[in-house]
């Protein structure tokens, strides 16, 4: 493991490497958690029914978000000017349809899909679903229905005030922070390609293979050294996230680690592919930067993919950062490892393709 040890030593000798991998993501993590922009959602409600039931629905939403009164006329302006994150319209005959067990669909408007607006939507649909069940169970008996609803709401209030409300914003912040962790791990592309190119530039690459070292062992040791650096980075940043910022990493932080680790394999594979394509350290650095930042942008490391134009969203399916961020979003929002298996497999497929391309490009040591 001589090459492995040597790479770790070389990494630690240069402060810039440490800054790229650890310090930059850390700065953005601090910013993610210190900002006030991730507060409770602001929801505008237009009530066309004006019944006890519609008022109770409004009260329930108030437990999840800041409710603002809007009208049909100004709802568009309110949304465009970011006065509200979304607008929910309660239609006429809402209560009547509900008691009769007929289908009801609330209209909602939002400028962009975000975790905030989708969280409210999820809450409202769950609430309506529960009301429907109560309506069916009470067979249209109004008194019994409202009695049941009061009872439900009393419990419902307690449940949501202590869970969803505080964790929603925290999850939002966590996702922003994880975006920068992914960005930091993507910097391994630059480190790995630069290290190999330096070996080639210094003619050490050829010289190494005049010793009993095989090219396979050299590659494996290189990959292992970068993955070790990635693991230390992931564990450090995750520890800071959890212990320092009480980040909400979902039910299984180990799964978050697995996704981040799988993503670092992709980063290493891209770095090795770059080193097989370019002819100098300068070219390696330039190509790395050309890949890292656009991929991070397209993949949603800096902002939600949903705010980007549709064609960019389609392109983003072809970059690994997207799949890393998707998997992390699922995990942070309560899913388990089973739900992100496809995303992980896609990341592994990316890595396999890049490794294969790299090995195809470099077939002979001295050419």
């Amino acid at each position, binding site marked *: 493991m*001589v090459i492995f040890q*040597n790479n770790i030593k*070389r990494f630690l*000798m240069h402060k810039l490497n440490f800054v790229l991998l650890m310090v930059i993501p850390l700065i953005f993590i601090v910013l993610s958690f210190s900002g006030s922009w991730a507060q409770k959602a602001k929801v505008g409600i237009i009530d066309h029914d004006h019944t006890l039931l519609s008022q109770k629905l409004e009260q329930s939403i108030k437990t999840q978000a800041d409710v603002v009164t809007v009208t049909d006329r100004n709802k568009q302006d309110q949304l465009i000017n970011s006065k509200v994150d979304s607008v929910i319209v309660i239609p006429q005959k809402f209560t009547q349809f509900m008691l009769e067990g007929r289908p009801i669909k609330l209209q909602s408007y939002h400028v962009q899909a975000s975790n905030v607006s989708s969280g409210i939507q999820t809450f409202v649909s769950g609430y309506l679903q529960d009301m429907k069940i109560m309506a069916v169970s009470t067979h249209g008996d109004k008194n019994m229905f409202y009695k049941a609803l009061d009872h439900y709401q009393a419990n419902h209030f307690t449940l949501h005030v202590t869970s969803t409300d505080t964790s929603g914003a925290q999850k939002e912040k966590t996702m922003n922070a994880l975006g920068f962790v992914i960005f930091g791990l993507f910097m391994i592309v630059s480190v790995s390609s630069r290290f190999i190119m330096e070996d080639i530039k*210094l*003619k*050490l690459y*050829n*010289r*190494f*293979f*005049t*010793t*009993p*070292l*095989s090219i396979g062992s050299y590659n494996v040791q290189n990959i292992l050294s970068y993955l070790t650096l990635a693991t230390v980075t992931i564990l450090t940043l995750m520890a800071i996230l959890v212990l320092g910022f009480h980040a909400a990493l979902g039910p299984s932080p180990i799964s978050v680690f697995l996704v981040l680790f799988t993503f670092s394999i992709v980063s290493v594979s891209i770095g090795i592919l770059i080193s097989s394509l370019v002819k100098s350290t300068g070219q390696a650095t330039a190509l790395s930067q050309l890949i890292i930042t656009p991929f991070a942008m397209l993949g949603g490391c800096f902002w939600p993919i949903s705010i980007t134009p549709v064609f960019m969203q389609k392109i983003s399916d072809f970059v690994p950062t997207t799949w890393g961020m998707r998997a992390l979003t699922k995990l942070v929002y309560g899913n388990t490892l089973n739900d992100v298996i496809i995303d992980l497999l896609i990341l592994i497929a990316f890595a396999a393709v890049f490794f294969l391309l790299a090995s195809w490009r470099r077939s*002979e*040591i*001295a*050419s």
Partner: protein
Amino acid sequence: MIIEVKDLVKRYKDFLAIDHLSLTIKEGEIFGLLGPNGAGKTTLTNTILGLTAIDQGTITVFGKELRKHEREIKEDIGLVPQDIAVYDELTAYENIRLFGKLFGLRGEALKNGIDDALEFTGLTHLKNKKPSQFSGGMKRRLNIACAIVHKPKLIIMDEPTVGIDPQSRNYILESVKKLNQLDCTVIYISHYMEEVAAICSQIAIVDKGRIIAKGTKEELSRLIVDDQVISVDVEAPDYTIIERLKNLHGVKDASIDGQTVRIVLNELKLNTVLSTFLEEGSTITKVATNTPTLEDVFLTLTGRALREGSR
């Protein structure tokens, strides 16, 4: 035989780098590989080290076929590459230790190997310095130290004296002799004729991927022993005179080096040569006759100089 190369062929697309080359090197020799840039010397060593795939032929080192025993063979070979291949960010000691470990040395054997390599190259007092603080000659010595840390049976030195001062050059040449005295076979690759002549017991002249002559310095000189080498200094020599001289019966070769026209002849009289100069209107400033050197052998055999100018 420490190395046996049979019918070796190496192509880079349409370029034939090694052309059906066969070569044997005996144990204990300092074997000189002489040839101009692009002759195929480095490609030949790359194939012996398994760095380059071959298209045809067989290579046997230490009696074992390279293709089957590559790892085993490499444990006993040390390469001093043409370029200084060390890490600038590591100290001399750390660089040597890195190669010692790559050759499988550990513990006391590694420590002793490093200390011996530092002592042999005279770098012990500089072991904690980084190569960036070294002169060109010191870097070359560190390059050698990295190749001998594991005490190899065979050392391949590829142009180890390029770009260094005469003192360091002499130090390196003396080191080669000392290594040889320590039962180490050395392949010394150079286009510096005088270095090869001074230290090598066997010399092979390589050109266009082939060995065009092989033997001791004396044996090679005998190839043109009947020849006479005349150096004529003239004012403003040009290629017209070279063409005329080459067309004379008995002239084997003619070339220009600065103000000097060098002629290798075997049957011709000196006055015929001089008459040709006078007929061309050249002003002769000096005439000298020389004993054939390895340079003359090379020129005669290949028709071209080993390198531009001289040191």
